[in-house]
């Protein structure tokens, strides 16, 4: 006999936590699973004060929001498994989970779910240049985890590639931890992130090399990063010969964008679409955050790279929709609540930074309506092989 749960939420970042909280509050039995040793996803690394409105905890530091959500999840009766990886989704809404990643005995447990919410976030893009595999070259998120969560510096002299919000914020946080940021490198002629974040970097006297890219990382005798060669780029982003500069650094952090980690829904044959603005291939979903397969929902960066605020709201919708489908929430109440959340999402996607994402979200939902219409129960999809337990 398999252990049964009403809702299994994969990923305990802001989207997953919010979804688990809503479903749990409504009375559903919820299991929240995360690979990491701590819940909160990227929230615990965010030590800066968030933007947004008071409904979105504006002015509150990311890790404080993480703590609040975790407590709310516990209060809502959500069961949380950490150090556990969802290694498979099988026909019949079965979720295979490998426990014991924290060093305890490994075992695989299969849960029989009624609804599954995939909120597995995103992962960092890689930029390849000569020497990109040298120890000391890492994702900006990795450096951020090291200083903000583990309180250890990844290096002393850090060169940041990318001036999107991740590049700008992580540079600031590395300086707060006592590292020296020797510069930021940006291939475009424009700063990618918010002006106010860039302003903090400039006030700290850190050089920003616009229209530049990294062409080579040179290791020292110990095999780790010692020098970085950057060069100016032309309008096609090709390095211009003769413009090379050598910068001394022992760490290179890459903040060149994120791509959605959206592999699990593929296992259930959910339909996907490619979206450049959102960072890659994403599962199509409707306004209930439900994919083409009935009972499988998605929320947060998995559906397109945005922010913690939007992830939180999407998670709420998925949690409410799943609980509603199971009969735990009255349909009228659910519809009204979801409508309010969609209004908040529109407000979050306003302004020059957000409006492109708003337009793309609308495209995704329209594409879903056109190609899929309504979600199909698993058994009705083509090629479905029902596996008896």
């Amino acid at each position, binding site marked *: 006999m398999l252990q049964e749960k009403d809702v299994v939420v994969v990923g305990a970042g802001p989207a997953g936590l919010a979804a688990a909280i809503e479903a749990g509050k409504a009375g559903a039995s919820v299991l929240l699973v995360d*690979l*990491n*040793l701590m819940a909160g996803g990227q929230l615990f690394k965010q*030590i800066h004060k968030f933007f947004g409105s008071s409904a979105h905890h504006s002015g509150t*530091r990311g890790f404080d929001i993480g703590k609040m959500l975790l407590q709310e999840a516990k209060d809502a009766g959500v069961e949380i498994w950490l*150090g556990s990886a969802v290694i498979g989704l099988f026909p019949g809404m079965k979720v295979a989970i490998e426990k014991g*990643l*924290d*060093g305890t005995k490994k075992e695989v447990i299969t849960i029989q779910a009624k609804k599954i919410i995939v909120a597995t976030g995103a*992962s*960092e893009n890689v930029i390849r240049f000569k020497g990109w*595999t*040298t*120890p*000391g*070259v*890492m*994702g900006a*998120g*990795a*450096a951020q*985890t*090291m*200083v*903000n969560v*583990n*309180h*250890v*510096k*990844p*290096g*002393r002299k850090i060169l940041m590639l990318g001036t999107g919000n991740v590049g700008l914020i992580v540079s600031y946080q590395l300086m*707060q*931890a*006592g590292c020296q940021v020797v510069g930021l490198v940006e291939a475009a002629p424009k700063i990618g992130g918010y002006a106010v974040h860039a302003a903090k970097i400039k006030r700290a006297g850190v050089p920003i090399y616009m229209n530049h890219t990294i062409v080579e990382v040179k290791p020292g005798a*110990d*095999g*780790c990063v010692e020098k970085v060669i950057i060069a100016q780029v032309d309008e096609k982003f090709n390095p211009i010969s003769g413009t090379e500069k050598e910068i001394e650094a022992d760490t290179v952090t890459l903040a060149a964008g994120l791509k959605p*980690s959206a592999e699990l829904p593929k296992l259930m044959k959910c339909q996907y679409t490619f979206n450049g603005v959102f960072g890659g291939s994403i599962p199509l979903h409707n306004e209930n955050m439900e994919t083409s397969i009935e009972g499988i929902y998605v929320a947060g960066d998995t559906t397109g790279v945005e922010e913690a605020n939007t992830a939180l709201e999407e998670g709420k919708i998925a949690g409410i929709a799943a609980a509603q489908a199971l009969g735990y929430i009255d349909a009228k109440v659910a519809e009204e609540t979801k409508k309010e959340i969609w209004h908040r999402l529109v407000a979050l996607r306003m302004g020059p930074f957000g409006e492109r994402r708003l337009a793309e979200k609308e495209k995704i939902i329209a594409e879903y309506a056109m190609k899929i219409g309504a979600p199909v129960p698993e058994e009705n999809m083509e090629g479905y092989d029902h596996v008896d337990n």
Partner: protein
Amino acid sequence: MCMRVENHVILDVEKKVSPVEITVDGLVIEAYEGEPVLGALLNAGIKINRYTVKRHEPRGLFCGIGQCTDCAMVVDGVPNVRTCITPVKAGMVIKTQDGLSKGEA
């Protein structure tokens, strides 16, 4: 070499417990129970976790969240352990992984 963040305006970085000892390639280093093994290694200035199979090239921290496997090392005899998501236990024996380091009993 101490790479710990010892002062911070926002974070409480004061260590409230005593460190334990773990061994890395025979060298005894300080670590805190529960922190990722990789954190203790970085604090000790150790940036190389393994060498690749074909070209014997060094690899170290890349993603920090258990997705890329560049930080994999042999921990207490078990190879391919992602040190960025594995918590420290007192007395752990860690070795730089060479290629696939097929199991050291």
